[in-house]
């Protein structure tokens, strides 16, 4: 009886291997729940580029494969491990594929595959295909993602790759991450993988990332608008925003503006005008803020006194503000539309935090141990030691708090919180507490 079971499992393994090797377009694998088999038919199903295995045989196949692997290939005889020739490797490869399809969380087996790849017994492209199948069934399997990262790192290290080859790889990777994120909500691993990919691409020399940053920014916007509780995606969006903010040169800015349908300046100006309605001292009636240059706008919103005389890049700062304020408006819309989603509020915290930090930075301050202290200007290293610490802090605080942009932000937030409170959104109160006690704005809110 035992012999029969081994023969059956070996035949099933062979059938699976046949499908894997003959069909390069396979994209999904799953176990089909079938109670028991009454017919003498193979349990390996292959339809429309999907591979299926009937559930009645899974137990037998897995037990057999696992015990074979552990007994024969993972035991401690040094001789066997060191001379893994091509004759043993085929059988080993087959066993590993089947076992990993059924249970991909065994890192020992993935390590064995890494060993085989290093000895050129397995090809990287077929490994990528196998992980794709694994991830179609278990989208949260970090071992599979980790293996993919290892493979991609090895592939991308090759200097002679052509850029459209890299582009194809990248597209496929993003597609895979998207599918995995779709199948499982809040899939930290797939979003993390996406971030890793962008970080790795930064190190490649002949690949331009500007378009990719913009594309990812827009992608994350669409995704977060549809999946409002996917906090992993919000984390990714924060990463995308950071990427955009770090590359605000003219070329990039033009591309960025073209890709977004909304006029960022208009959005920013709307917020400013709404908030500054009552305080018209800064604005003349016939001034059109839309026409202002970036420098002029910054000078208007943040008064020009700074601690040192280094030239601060006001253009970049203005653009940064435009991006962040736009994000704030979008976030407000989403909160109003989808009530009671905590992730949206936490994202709002991030946006507000970024805005406040930028303002502090402009004035040469930073938050240390809960209080605002002077920061050494990184460019000119001036350090004003003349006055006592406490007085300086107080003075600069007032300075910061009385700048126009700060007042805009605070009034905007105050109005929003009030409005949400009236709509019985319990997170509004928490947000207020956050601003008061974590950001230290209890004086002004």
């Amino acid at each position, binding site marked *: *009886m035992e012999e029969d079971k081994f023969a*059956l499992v070996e035949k099933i393994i062979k059938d699976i291997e046949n499908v894997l090797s003959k069909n390069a377009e396979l994209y999904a694998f799953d176990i089909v729940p079938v109670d028991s088999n009454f017919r003498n038919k193979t349990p390996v199903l292959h339809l429309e580029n999907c591979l299926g295995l009937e559930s009645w045989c899974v137990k037998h196949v897995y037990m057999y494969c696992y015990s074979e692997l552990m007994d024969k290939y993972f035991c401690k005889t040094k001789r066997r491990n060191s*001379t893994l020739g091509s004759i043993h490797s085929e059988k080993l490869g087959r066993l590993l594929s089947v076992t990993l399809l059924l249970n991909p969380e065994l890192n020992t087996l993935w390590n064995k595959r890494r060993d085989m790849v290093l000895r050129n017994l397995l090809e990287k492209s077929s490994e990528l295909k196998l992980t794709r199948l694994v991830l179609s069934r278990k989208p949260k399997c970090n071992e599979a993602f980790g293996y993919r990262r290892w493979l991609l790192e090895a592939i991308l290290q090759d200097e002679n790759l052509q850029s459209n080859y890299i582009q194809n790889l990248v597209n496929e990777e993003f597609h895979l991450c998207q599918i995995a994120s779709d199948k499982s909500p809040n899939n930290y691993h797939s979003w993390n993988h996406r971030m890793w990919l962008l970080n790795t691409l930064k190190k490649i020399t002949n690949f331009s990332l500007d378009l990719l940053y913009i594309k990812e920014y827009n992608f994350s916007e669409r995704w977060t608008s549809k999946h409002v509780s996917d906090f992993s995606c919000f984390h990714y969006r924060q990463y995308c925003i950071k990427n955009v903010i770090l590359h605000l040169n003219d070329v990039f800015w033009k591309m960025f503006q073209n890709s977004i349908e909304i006029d960022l300046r208009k959005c920013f100006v709307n917020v400013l005008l709404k908030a500054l309605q009552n305080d018209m001292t800064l604005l003349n009636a016939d001034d059109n803020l839309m026409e202002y240059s970036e420098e002029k706008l910054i000078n208007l919103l943040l008064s020009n006194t700074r601690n040192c005389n280094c030239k601060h890049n006001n253009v970049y700062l203005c653009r940064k503000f435009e991006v962040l304020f736009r994000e704030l408006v979008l976030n407000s819309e989403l909160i109003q539309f989808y009530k009671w989603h905590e992730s949206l509020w936490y994202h709002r915290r991030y946006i507000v935090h970024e805005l406040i930090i930028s303002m502090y930075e402009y004035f040469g301050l930073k938050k240390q141990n809960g209080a605002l202290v002077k920061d050494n200007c990184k460019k000119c290293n001036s350090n004003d030691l003349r006055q006592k610490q406490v007085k300086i802090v107080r003075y600069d605080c007032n300075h910061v708090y009385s700048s126009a942009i700060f007042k805009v932000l605070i009034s905007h937030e105050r109005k929003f919180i009030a409005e949400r409170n009236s709509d019985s959104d319990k997170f509004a109160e928490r947000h207020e507490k956050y601003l008061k006690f974590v950001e230290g704005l209890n004086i002004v809110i």
Partner: protein
Amino acid sequence: MTHSGRSKFEITRFTNEDENHINRKLPKELLLRILSYLDVVSLCRCAQVSKLWNILALDGSNWQRIDLFEFQRDVEGPVIENISQRCGGFLRQLSLRGCESIGDGSMKTLAQSCPNIEDLNLNKCKKITDQTCQALGRRCSKLQKINLDSCPSVSDISLKALADGCPLLTHVNVSWCQSITESGVEALARGCPKLKSFICKGCKNVNDRAVISLATRCPDLEVLDIQGCETVSDEAVSRLGAAAPRLATLELAQCTQLTDAGFQALARNCRMLERMDLEECVLITDATLVHLSMGCPRLEKLTLSHCDLITDNGIKQLSLSPCAAEHLTVLGLDNCPLVTDEALEHLTSCHNLQLIELYDCQMVTRNAIRKLRNHLPNIKVHAYFAPVTPPAAAGGARPRYCRCCNII
């Protein structure tokens, strides 16, 4: 003895000074005899024991049969060169299966230093080319068995060189050497009339003429494996039948053009057929089974996978044949969709049947398999039916004895 590097004087010097029991009790001839039974790894270890043992272990006479399969890719050129130097004329059998790093240079050295080699296995030595075989043909006239499976650079030139230089060849395996064509095979047949076994799986260019020349010129042919040679037709098979009466093993998997006519002729003459593989010969019908059952009383292994036209009738004829009761041990019927439970009933009379393959025979049911197992308790039936898990052992708690009662 003089092939070892040291002289007789040195051997006596070492034996006289030796205090070890074993070396005093056993004469060196006996030690040599014992060492001759050891494999390569043990011999190398023995050679590190003492100076006397070094001389004895590395003596050429212990190195007549070497198998380096365990080392595969670690074996490189210098290893072969050292071996050929040490073994010299003693080397008879060398297996380099899986040693992918071996190249022509080392093999030429081997051919030069070891002219008495009889059995050479170069399975999967991918770097070997025709030059090796030419060197072998020139120097190693005693070569009897050569295995060039999966050496893709080997072509007709090799076969011609071997045919010219090694008339004693009995076993030749050139599977997956895609450049082999009928001219090489004809040359081989002409030059090696003692050929008993010829295996050329996957050599798509081997055609009828090649098979016919083998059949006519090699009357001793017992094993012929032309799996994957799709161009072979009935003509070749019938000529084979006529000219090679000693044929015992015939593997014709994937030779899709064969029909009943060829097997009719074959079965008339080849009475000694024991193993036949007809996988994917899709045109054959029950008539072939009738011919085989009448003409081949010694049939032991028969594979009919993917032969769609086989029905229960054919199996019935097979079970009534003289080979069925005593000889038939392995029957492969997987992917024959017309086989039903009735066939299994007929097979109950095959008392020696040990293995039957029924994968994807959709009309076979579990009941029939169970009945077959009742009749033939030793049979292994390979089908897609999941093995039934035995029920949990009833009454799991064993009666306990207290120790004193057990002892008393």
